């Protein structure tokens, strides 16, 4: 089986598996974040559960970190390998005649998402690690010791319009990445052809609705803080 994951097709499976996990993670991240629009209390409760439940912290979080790193590292590795598979470039190449812009530029949409993740980690993840594991404060409470801090932290981040614009741009790139990535992952996993109509429609819907939802959340909090 180790030989399988060293083959070109084995790596496709691995990329697809990490993509499935990341797409599932994105869905649950969205489901929790959208609560912040309708009910700050429900958002706080869900965030506290995700931030303190052992299985999420010590089982799912390491898998997520591995999945993100693997997807990026393997994505770059395969891109370099693929570039090397054609030493002399075409003088004229009409890629638009046979494939979508999204499918040909996954590396660039991926790079934009990576840049966003750095910002996102600095914004949320690193302060979260600092609060919980360096300061040892697992209560999830504000300094007043009475109410949860998660909703306040989220809203505070979207006060700055520059950050909101950066988030909107990043989610546009995420949408472009998913436009091809969703059905491509199914094709790579050998489930069925990416040309299957229903899969295409579902993939496009996911690629539009989820990033658009995140954009809505950022803009909503910017104008309602």
């Amino acid at each position: 089986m180790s030989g399988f994951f060293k083959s070109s097709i084995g790596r496709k499976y691995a990329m697809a598996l990490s993509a499935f996990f990341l797409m599932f993670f994105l869905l649950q991240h969205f489901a929790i974040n959208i609560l912040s629009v309708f009910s700050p209390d429900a958002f706080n409760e869900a965030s506290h559960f995700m931030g303190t439940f052992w299985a999420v912290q010590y089982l799912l979080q390491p898998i997520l970190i591995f999945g993100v790193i693997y997807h990026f590292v393997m994505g770059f590795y395969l891109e370099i390998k693929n570039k090397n598979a054609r030493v002399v470039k075409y003088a004229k190449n009409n890629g638009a005649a046979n494939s979508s812009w999204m499918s040909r530029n996954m590396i660039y949409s991926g790079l934009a998402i990576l840049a966003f993740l750095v910002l996102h980690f600095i914004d949320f993840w690193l302060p979260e690690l600092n609060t919980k594991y360096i300061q040892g404060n697992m209560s999830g409470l504000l300094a007043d010791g009475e109410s949860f801090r998660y909703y306040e932290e989220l809203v505070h981040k979207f006060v700055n319009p520059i950050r909101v614009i950066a988030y909107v741009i990043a989610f546009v790139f995420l949408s472009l990445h998913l436009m091809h990535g969703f059905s491509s992952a199914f094709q790579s996993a050998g489930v069925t052809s990416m040309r299957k109509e229903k899969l295409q429609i579902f993939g496009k819907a996911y690629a539009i609705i989820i990033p658009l939802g995140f954009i809505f959340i950022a803009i909503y909090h910017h104008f309602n803080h």
Partner: protein
Amino acid sequence: MNLTLKIWRQKDAQSKGKMVDYKVTEISEHMSFLEMMDVLNEQLINSGEEPVAFDHDCREGICGMCSMYINGEAHGPDRGVTTCQLHMRMFKDGDTITIEPFRAKAFPVLKDLVVDRGAFDRIQHAGGYISVNTSGNTQDANSLPISKHAADEAMDAATCIGCGACVASCKNSSAMLFVGAKVSQYALLPQGQVEATDRVRNMVAQMDLEGFGNCTNTGACEVECPKGISLENIARMNRELLKSNF
């Protein structure tokens, strides 16, 4: 029609090539693309120049020998045809046409527009066959019941002529449509089951060894394939390889 041609000229495999401009006049729209190339070559020979080397054989769209990258697409702008079946009516008077060899590290240029597609032969040798005793007591293939659906799908996969347009069109120079078709044509039939495990493993290993890139599912190969080989064959090859590990 009068045309300007920008053609890749390369003396041999070791030389560095370059694009060279040529003019051709009075080209009929009813000519095939290769007939237009013949006109150019007659012109070059008459003026004492080296004619442009290009691969061709049957000129009926079934042998898979012709292999030009025309105006940025394998086999040119038409769909479901090889270069020999591409007609000049697809172009307009005064057009500039860029003609290059199929480009991939695994398809080295031998001369001008001729590339070595031996990598495909070596992948076929690695497992693209079934072992049959031909000593005189060979079983009639029709004695094995095969569903119409499976037979049709296997036949569709088997129509791959191995021209290499999939590799040439792919931004990654991946050969997975070709290998997927060759794996599929046997995987769908009972005759192919006995050696199925070794076949897919060996063919994929050889494909990787030849230096083809990795498929990223852009679908360019399926669009440019003169025989319309479906991406479904790549998905099937992926399943076959996974299955071969259990």
